[in-house]
């Protein structure tokens, strides 16, 4: 348990360093949903960096898969339709709400944006309510 907290703090610190590099060097917010959404409606000269960012995430994932194989454990046992619904909600909701855990939760809060603080509180509370509800009706175990 204590090890989990240390890993979380350490991993969080690395996330903080990475989004700080993006800000300091490129002057941008590292909001994953926004970066992906920008690829879907490509603007000239504003697409390559987005694709490379996602490629970077994938390469990071590959290194983790090789060096730390437990990284992708803990998969949920829900059925495929539940997973599809979750994906649809996350895609729709993050574009409608202009951000996700990274853009609002990390970057926005660090910039003391009230809008991002509100979004973060809302999605965490909605997540808590959803887990409570879906456990009660037996969709989540």
């Amino acid at each position, binding site marked *: 348990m204590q090890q989990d*907290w240390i*890993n*979380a703090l350490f*991993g*969080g610190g690395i*996330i*903080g360093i*990475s*989004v700080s*590099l*993006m*800000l*300091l*060097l*490129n*002057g*941008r917010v590292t909001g*994953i949903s926004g970066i*992906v959404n920008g690829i879907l409606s490509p603007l000239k000269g504003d697409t390559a*960096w987005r694709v490379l960012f996602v490629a*970077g*995430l*994938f*390469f*990071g*994932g590959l290194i*983790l898969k090789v060096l730390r194989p437990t*990284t*992708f454990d*803990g998969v949920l046992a829900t059925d*495929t339709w*539940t997973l599809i619904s*979750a*994906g649809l*909600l*996350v*895609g*729709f*909701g*993050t*574009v*409608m*709400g*202009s951000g*996700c855990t*990274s853009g*609002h939760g*990390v970057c926005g809060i*660090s*910039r003391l*944006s009230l*809008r991002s603080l*509100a979004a973060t509180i*809302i999605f965490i509370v*909605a*997540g808590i*309510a*959803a*887990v*409570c509800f879906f456990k009660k009706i037996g969709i989540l175990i």
Partner: protein
Amino acid sequence: MKNSLVALSVGFLFAIGLGLSGMTEPQKVVGFLDLFGSWDPSLIFVMIGAILVHFLVFKFTKKLNKPLLDTKWHLPTKKEITPALVIGSTLFGIGWGLGGYCPGPALTSLASFEIRPLIFVVSMIAGMYLFRLFDKKFKLQK
């Protein structure tokens, strides 16, 4: 060119941070949101760690006229808490609890070559397109 290499490196480092912190394990994410069950609070430290670092760097960058490798800042300027922000964040939160993935960890988990992250990411992109269709009709102020 330089900016693209920065983006690639930032993506790489970000994924490593996500993996080490536990964010790529859906059961752990659901455990974090399971406040009224067997709550696992450890993931709150991911946000604390990331915000501590980024808050300090952001304060420093406010002293700069422009970023080191670009001609201007590209930061969000909106301040209003709009209905779209509230409803969108609610829908996202529900999906996050239901699937245990937010966008970054889902994309990183594609590298596991398992089918579930792939199904999630394809659905997430479909959801982004669905919002476009919806927005074309209702023209929301995001």
